[in-house]
């Protein structure tokens, strides 16, 4: 395992696979996530990118930030496109038309993954193509201005489920993508976060080296639509872990391992405050929403601990 300095060199040195000059919002964490994940591959990486923030800001023609083979087709099919790339890779290797080894990486936001790309992802995982799927989860359709997704948390204000006289925002909890992916009995699934570079790097490396499909879910605090100061992205990522809102854990060959267990988990308000999408929850009439949210987080955490302790395999 390389040191943090070595990872820094890999992500900013001469062999960098993702270069600066892109048009991400100031303070966006996607760049750091993608650079770290790409650096974790010891082989060239062929990337397929679903429509979304990352695609839009990195490839405004005639410019590109990708110093590695990259393609984009449409919104909901990064995993199916990756299936085709992997099939081509196998066929062309077998016939000797290509000789280089590669890793294949599909990347989507939560919209392209939890929602519109869900079927394509499930199909590709079930067919056991050897590729890694990376979802940068900013918890709503942020590229188009904050519409709710299946990853939007309970109580969040979005433009399609806004706060109103009879609405406190999203009334449903979000999908658990890690468990859904693990239910496909694939070799590696992990949840990680932008601020925890070593954790992210290590998990990306495991995903690339897995003997089959791997899924990496990374929380990506959105400075623009969660609406916090651009200097605080990593701070919010850290708070998500410290409150157990976004536990860092992995499912390796079906076995659950929690990577970080906060000794004193912080109350969820620590994560919520300062984010415009949750501002309404601090009004007295919405106090019950925070109580409910805290209970759900604690229940989920207790459940995760139990699964880990039980040793029961996914």
């Amino acid at each position: 395992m390389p040191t943090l300095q070595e990872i820094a060199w890999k992500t900013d040195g001469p062999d960098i696979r993702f270069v600066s000059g892109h048009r991400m919002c100031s303070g966006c964490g996607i760049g750091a996530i993608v650079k770290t994940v790409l650096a974790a591959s010891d082989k060239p990486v062929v990337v397929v990118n679903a429509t979304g923030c990352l695609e839009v800001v990195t490839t405004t023609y005639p410019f590109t930030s990708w110093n590695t083979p990259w393609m984009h087709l449409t919104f909901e099919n990064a995993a199916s496109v990756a299936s085709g790339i992997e099939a081509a890779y196998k066929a062309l290797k077998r016939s000797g038309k290509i000789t280089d080894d590669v890793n294949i990486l599909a990347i989507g936001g939560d919209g392209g993954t939890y929602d519109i790309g869900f079927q394509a992802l499930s199909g590709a995982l079930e067919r056991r193509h050897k590729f890694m799927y990376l979802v940068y989860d900013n918890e709503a359709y942020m590229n188009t201005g904050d519409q709710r997704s299946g990853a939007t948390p309970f109580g969040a204000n979005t433009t399609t489920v806004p706060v109103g006289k009879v609405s406190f925002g999203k009334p449903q909890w979000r999908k658990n993508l890690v468990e859904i992916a693990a239910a496909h009995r694939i070799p590696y699934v992990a949840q990680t976060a932008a601020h925890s570079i070593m954790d992210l790097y290590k998990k990306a490396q495991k995903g690339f080296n897995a003997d089959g499909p791997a899924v990496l879910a990374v929380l990506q605090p959105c400075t623009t639509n969660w609406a916090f100061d651009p200097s605080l992205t990593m701070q919010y990522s850290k708070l998500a872990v410290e409150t157990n809102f976004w536990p860092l854990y992995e499912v390796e060959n079906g076995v659950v391992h929690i990577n970080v267990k906060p000794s004193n988990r912080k109350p969820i308000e620590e994560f919520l405050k300062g984010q415009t999408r949750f501002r309404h929850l601090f009004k007295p009439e919405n106090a019950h929403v925070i109580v409910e949210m805290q209970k759900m987080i604690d229940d989920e955490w207790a459940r995760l601990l139990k699964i880990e302790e039980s040793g029961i395999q996914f």
Partner: protein
Amino acid sequence: MGVRKAITGAQASAEAMRQINPDVVAAYPITPQTPIVEEFAKYVADGVVDTEMVAVESEHSAMSAVVGAETAGARAMSATSSQGLALMWEVVAATPGLRLPIVMSLVNRTISAPINIHCDHSDVMGLTTLGWIQIFSENAQEVYENTLLAIRVAEDNRVQLPAMVNQDGFITSHAVEPVEIFDDASVQRFVGARSLDRALLDVKQVRSVGPLVLPDYLFEFKRAQEEAMSKVFEVYREVGAELGAITGRQYPFFETYQTEDAEAVIVVLNSAAGTTKAAIDIMRAHGKKVGLLKPILFRPFPYAEVREALKNVPVIGVLDRSMAFGACAPLYAELRNALWALDKRPAMQSYIYGLGGRDIMTTEIEGVFEELLSGKLDSEHQRYIGLRG
């Protein structure tokens, strides 16, 4: 000389795919395309082909996987029908813009609703504006040869566009006919291998494919796409001549049958052209001067050549197996466009026939010819063949 085999149109399609031996096939079964996928899957299972077959979970993923494979550098193929084509529409639309020479079989079937598994052309006619080369096939023999032809036309460097090879659902796809299959070695020499020139898997030449293109450049991309489409005619002729050296046949943009002295001509696509030829033979035996023009290359549409072929015909009936609801039927509209530039335009009549797989008989075609010869036409209103009530 080839070997004559008794096979269906679907098997003819699979047979062409066997000889092409594509690197990747991704497909989702749908009636009446299913036997193509099943037949090809058997080739894969028996090791007859080297293909990596991806049995995807939907048509949207089928076309997405094929696009991924082609971008990666593979020769990739698929097949579908009707609702399957509708589901993959988004990716079908994106493919020509990416300049990927994917060849796909389309077994023509009605688009829902009402749901119906039988033949008409409402599936393909819904997407003829997208930029795919469209080739139509009267019978299983043409399905086989058109598939081989399509690969070379699509992959030619002047073109680099996807192509769809159409055949009539059930009528062609499930009917057994004698089909002449040419020897593997000659066919494989003809189809060759796809160039790896722009392969994403060529990791030494790093590329970004499918970027965001804004108003400052998109228009130019689309103009270049049209330029490529215009090159299809010359490439189709050249490639057709090469294929003809193997098959002994010719590959015109359209077939004419008994048109030289014809006083009335029917224009019709796919299998109904065969029925029309039979009706023409009957009528010619009774001294009626009637003929047929059967378009084969529908996109790009050979307007000038069609105009030249029909310039002396006084009456033309165009038979469409789909409607354009509120507008001229698709084939009729093309014929009107093609013939508009003539100094002396023919009388024209639009007919709709065979929707949802309704049979069309030689007697009905004879009736159409009689009507055309009678001069009792109404070019502003379409008429319906075999419609009840």
